[in-house]
């Protein structure tokens, strides 16, 4: 239909509302990586700092959000990468995680005086953290500088939690762990090693602490109760990795079967290859699309000649003289409907011989040391009832975080739980309600410098993702502690950094200025923009210049435009943040403005961010 003037002016009944960009979540969400990161690390900003060679600044910016950039730059689960817009524009996301490591590797030695410091005076309040994993360490990191006396109790002889006991040193060197944990301990945190807490009630009764943070993880590996399980050469994955980490186990049989195909399985199989195994098979019950392990971990394992066997469901251990000599499996077939299994059948039965079996089928949290009458309520699955916002338990002075709070997740979630629990503890001990906490805010500031000059590098770099260099297959098996990934060189880092699209440099639109000349629409390389007649969301989506097939990606909708009453619509999905729209706009209706997210931590009172103010340079 032609857009006649009358047709344009009459607002259709089911019209879309103009987007409320004052809601900090709008621009935050546009920064896909930062939105996906549980701690909301300012990824584009640290990548720009790396591009400028400011590695120490990049490191410190990371640390402010994720506390362990050196560790996470190696082993983070990196939910940011599948979210990265570059991965939708091309097929590979920016190597966000590897760039984090670059910041840690190249930061140099001069940052000591820029790290948080022990306070001059304590505030008289004492906190106990149970377990020295990343969750507890984050609580200590946030609260110690505020004057709290923090004591960490750890049952093992070294701090770090699963990062030390389960993540193998060929992925995460001890020296990196020691350095980043050391910074926290240097804040005057008291660490008690070999100090298991075996009764919460007793700890509470002693009255030594004003608040308790439970960061004890999900320490129990799941068992597989099949006939023959009692044999000595069947191991539980996380226990076995722990005994390797502490040097109690130094060898393994030649033929190893790993049951399960999650991240623990990946570490078990690669560790086995380093302890003398000749053939390692990872046995998966389902097809590849159902694997829990990350793609890169699967790739790394297969590169090391680990065999991954799909569609095998274990049915029994085969014993000979009390030792396992093989395992029986049902070979399965599945009917899929999209990504869902709708039917399954057993095709036949096979026995696979082996010398050792490692079970890597998941973890559970277990709290044998928390008396059920201590005031902390447990739900019907015997999990502690924890507020998802405040991490407070039903007992106001007891908080949970990390794997202990919500079951096994990963380090970066443990860190975020730690930040939020610390904020709650600080509020609680200041006499405030933890639920009544400060919220995120976004600050905008224009990047315009001149007619064609922006205070960021806005041209699109047509570069492919850099490949991570690895130690040769021959070298890496010589010692378990040889780190496989070598890290990017400064040159690789500089190139990879250019792939970032600067998604935090937002396209900010002022409807009253638009004269509907179409310049922005015609120049946009990825056809994000449309001036459309308003309607329901489905109607508006159908009117866009290029299909907007991903409903999870927001549409920006402007107020009605002056001349025709139509609306400016932007599909955020593929925007390159190239600034061409702003550059071609004759009236500066579009501007490129950097958004800075303020995500409150326990120190919110001392930081200077105000809620979504606008500043134009």
């Amino acid at each position, binding site marked *: 239909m032609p857009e006649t003037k009358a047709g344009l002016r009459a607002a259709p009944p089911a019209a879309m509302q103009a987007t409320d960009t004052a809601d900090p979540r709008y621009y935050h969400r546009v920064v896909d990586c930062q939105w996906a990161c549980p701690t909301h690390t300012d990824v584009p900003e640290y990548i720009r700092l790396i591009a400028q060679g400011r590695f120490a600044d990049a490191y410190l910016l990371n640390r402010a959000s994720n506390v362990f950039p050196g560790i996470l730059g190696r082993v983070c689960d990196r939910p940011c990468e599948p979210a990265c817009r570059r991965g*939708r524009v091309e097929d590979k996301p920016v190597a966000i995680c590897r760039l984090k490591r670059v910041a840690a590797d190249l930061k140099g030695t001069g940052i000591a005086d820029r790290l948080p410091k022990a306070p001059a005076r304590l505030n008289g309040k004492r906190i106990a953290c149970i377990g020295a994993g990343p969750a507890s360490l984050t609580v200590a990191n946030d609260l110690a500088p505020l004057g709290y006396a923090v004591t960490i109790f750890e049952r093992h002889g070294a701090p770090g939690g699963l990062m030390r006991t389960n993540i193998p040193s060929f992925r995460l060197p001890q020296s990196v762990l020691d350095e980043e944990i050391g910074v926290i301990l240097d804040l005057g945190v008291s660490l008690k090693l070999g100090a298991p807490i075996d009764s919460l009630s007793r700890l509470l009764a002693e009255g030594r602490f004003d608040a308790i943070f439970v960061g004890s993880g999900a320490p129990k590996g799941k068992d597989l109760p099949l006939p023959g399980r009692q044999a000595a050469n069947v191991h539980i994955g996380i226990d076995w990795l722990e005994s390797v980490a502490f040097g109690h186990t130094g060898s393994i049989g030649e033929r190893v079967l790993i049951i399960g195909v999650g991240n623990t399985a990946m570490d078990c199989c690669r560790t086995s290859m380093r302890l003398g195994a000749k053939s390692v098979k990872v046995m998966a019950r389902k097809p590849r699309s159902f694997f829990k392990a990350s793609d890169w971990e699967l790739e790394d394992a297969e590169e090391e000649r680990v065999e991954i066997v799909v569609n095998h469901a274990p049915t029994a251990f085969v014993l000979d003289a009390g030792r396992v000599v093989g395992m029986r499996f049902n070979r399965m077939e599945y009917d899929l409907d999209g990504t869902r299994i709708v039917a399954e059948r057993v095709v036949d039965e096979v026995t696979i011989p082996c010398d050792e079996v490692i079970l890597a089928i998941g973890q559970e949290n277990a709290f044998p040391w928390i008396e059920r009458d201590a005031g902390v309520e447990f739900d019907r699955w015997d999990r502690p009832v924890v507020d998802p916002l405040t991490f407070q338990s039903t007992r106001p002075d007891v908080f949970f975080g990390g794997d202990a709070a919500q079951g096994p997740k990963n380090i970066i979630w443990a860190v975020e739980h730690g930040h939020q629990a610390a904020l709650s503890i600080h509020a609680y001990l200041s006499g405030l309600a933890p639920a009544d906490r400060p919220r995120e805010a976004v600050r905008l500031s224009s990047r315009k410098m001149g007619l064609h000059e922006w205070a960021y590098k806005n041209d699109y770099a047509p570069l492919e993702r850099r490949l991570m260099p690895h130690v040769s297959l021959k070298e890496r098996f010589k010692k378990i502690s040889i780190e496989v990934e070598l890290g990017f060189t400064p040159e690789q880092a500089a190139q990879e950094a250019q792939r970032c699209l600067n998604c935090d440099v937002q396209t900010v639109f002022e409807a009253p200025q638009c004269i509907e000349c179409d310049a922005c629409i*015609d120049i946009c390389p990825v056809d994000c923009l449309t001036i459309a007649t308003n309607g329901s969301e489905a109607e508006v989506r159908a009117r866009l210049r290029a299909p907007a097939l991903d409903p999870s990606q927001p549409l920006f909708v402007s107020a009605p435009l002056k001349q025709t009453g139509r609306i400016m619509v932007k599909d955020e999905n593929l925007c390159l943040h190239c600034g061409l729209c702003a550059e071609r*706009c004759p009236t500066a209706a579009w501007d490129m403005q950097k958004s800075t997210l303020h995500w409150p931590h326990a120190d919110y009172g001392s930081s200077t961010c105000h809620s979504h103010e606008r500043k134009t340079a």
Partner: protein
Amino acid sequence: MTFMSKPKVAHPDLPRNALGLTRRDYEGANSTLCAGCGHDSITAAIIEACWANAVEPHTVVKLSGIGCSSKTTAYFLSGAHGFNSVHGRMPSIATGANAANRTLNYIGVSGDGDTLSIGLGQFCHAIRRNLNMVYIIENNGVYGLTKGQFSASADIGSKAKRGEVNRQPPIDPVQLAITLGASFVARSFSGDKAQLVPLLRAAMRHNGFALIDVISPCVTFNDHEGSTRSYAYAREHSEEAVHADFVPFASEIAVDYADGAAQTVTLHDGSRIVLRKVDADYDPSDPGVALDAIQQRMRRGEVLTGLLHIGQDAEDIHALGATPDTPLNAIAYESLSPGGDALRRVLESFR
């Protein structure tokens, strides 16, 4: 203008035409015009129309004169042939090229200055000869390139940026073309691609001279209060008389035209134009009716747009000249240049 070039990267789900190309494949060099210029929008409409018609870029010849508008042939179809002539001389270059090779698609882009002042004579004769081409006037009422003097299309009473008022009557290329017997005459607005793109698609398939006069605001020198070529003025004062939907050969007419005011015109290649008339009495095939309506509206300060006149009977330049079907470059040299004896025989026949 933009210093950074538009990156090659494109939306992965862009639709492809019958040649497997996306509209990005029909782009040209970066525009160096002022940001917001109507001309850039017309460039985008030409790109869209060529893509939608699935023309092969190398079968297109882009022709222009001098002016901001005439620069724009560089900004679309980098795979096409092109010729920037001197000021106002595009029609003669087009005539020569078309005489030599009738199989190519000729798109001429000119300005109101280039066409209606220095090039007025050439423009009229191209129409008379019924040159098979699309002739686009990017009409901003000023000489943009030379910094905004009134052009011959400026309306009486229109104000220049510095305040002086135009007192000479305008030349309206649409009325002129209809009087000269042009068979496809349309007017549109750079800010209305929903109207312009189908017009361009139909014009490219029309056999003979197709004029589209496109109101195209000059953001720098003629987009102010008091101008009759500003974005705001054009939107406020234009009224679509006949909307043309282009329906390619062998495609179904998808839209349901219930109101009876729709009329179908079949073009030489079998494609069709469905005309939707706002006023049922308007007959676009009758030049007299068209001129009447245009003038009536003009007296009320309104500008009629759309496909204002279409005729299908006029013979084009090749029919008039009885030229061979084959382009000259495909005719064997001996036939093209039959030698001295043949020339003598021809001369003999005139004695």
